[in-house]
Structure formats: structure tokens, C-alpha cells
């Protein structure tokens, strides 16, 4: 909370309220995203749709940024795991 603008030492009851609000928010978003039903598994596409309103633009952008970072790691790993890097009998 300090990072976002609160005092260096936020009030403890304020922190508790922030946590309550945050939990309510997360529950709200994921329940909306999964369409209220439990049948289909929660997907990234569901979350994208739930964050598609103009007011949620920053949150959506952050999501895309995180997806990019996860993709980045995935691609870097895939390159590292290329079969010709570990020829048979190389002892690696």
C-alpha cells in the first residue's frame, strides 16, 4: 500500500479493510469470468473478457504484460531444450 501512495506505515485496520476489499474483488472477477457456472474451466480468455471494459484497461494491459513474460520464459526454455544442443552420448 505504501508503494501505491499510502504512508510508509499504513494503519493496520486500513490494511485489513484493503484485504477484505481485495478478496471481494478477486472473487467478483473470477466468478464473472467463469460465467457463474463451474462447468467450464477458468481460462485466460475468460479473464480477458471479464476485463474488457474501458475502466479495466490498466488491469488488462498488466495481464497481457504478464502473459508476455510467461511466454518469454517458455520460449527461452524451448530454445535451451533444443535436441541438437544435447547430442546423444555427449555425456551432458
Amino acid at each position, binding site marked *: *500500500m*505504501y*508503494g*501505491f*501512495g*499510502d*504512508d510508509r*506505515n*499504513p*494503519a493496520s*485496520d*486500513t490494511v*485489513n*479493510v*484493503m*484485504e*477484505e*476489499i*481485495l*478478496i*471481494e*474483488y*478477486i*472473487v*467478483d*472477477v*473470477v*466468478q*464473472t469470468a*467463469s460465467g*457463474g457456472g*463451474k462447468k467450464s*474451466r*477458468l481460462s*485466460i480468455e475468460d*479473464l480477458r473478457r*471479464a*476485463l474488457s*471494459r474501458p*475502466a*479495466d484497461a*490498466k*488491469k*488488462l494491459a*498488466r*495481464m*497481457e*504484460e*504478464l*502473459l*508476455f513474460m*510467461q*511466454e518469454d520464459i*517458455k*520460449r527461452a526454455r524451448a530454445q535451451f531444450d533444443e535436441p541438437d544442443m544435447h547430442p546423444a552420448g555427449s555425456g551432458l
Partner: protein
Amino acid sequence: MLPAMADDDYSAQLSWQSQSKDNLKVLMDNFSPQQYDRFEAYRRHALPKQAVRKVIQGATGQQISQPVAQIVAGFSKVFVGEIVEKARQVQARRGDTGPLSPDHLREAYRMYQEETGRVGAARPLRGKRLFVR
């Protein structure tokens, strides 16, 4: 598993990221020590992934993968920022000083919901706690 990202999207993000890095460097070069300290705190702290995962699983009744929990934790952190910033505005408007109070937050959250509309829950979630702290 997350679906693979298209190459177009990947390279678009790549160039956006590199531009953002340059802008960020200019910004950081001009921080006061207090601003730098606060920015470091902003960067360093994230929502605990396991706790977020538990909340999602409790709310959906599904097993949630770690990457998805990470994504939700990520944009939920942005939400915290939106509430805190709004709370600061509420505080300023009232002429209060010092650390934010619970009332500032509650008013900020109320304003947030008014401005954005409820996320779209069909049934009222108010007062319905899924977890007891």
C-alpha cells in the same frame, strides 16, 4: 497450460517493452530519494500467489493452475493501486492527513464500483464472505 502466444503479439509486446524501458529510465533518473524509495516498494512487493490461488479456488470450486493464479495476482495488484490512489483523493478532498483510514478506502471502493459498474455478478455478493479471516 496457457495457449501459445502468436508471433505478432509477441513481437508487438517486445517493442513496447523496450520503449517502456527507456521511458522508465528517464523517470527513475528524476526521482527524489523518497520517490525512489516508494517506487522500489511498489516494484518489490506482489500479492502472495498461493493465497490468491486459494481465493480463486474457493470462489470457483476448481483447481487453478499456477500461471493463471500468477496472472490474477498480477492484475489484482493493479486494482489495489487504483483503490489506494482513489483513497488518497478522498482523503485530500476531506482535508485529512496521515495514513489512509478504513473509511477512505471504503469510500474509494464505493466510487470505484460506481465508476466501473459491478464486474457483472448476476447475484448480489455483498456481505457474503467465502472465507473467515
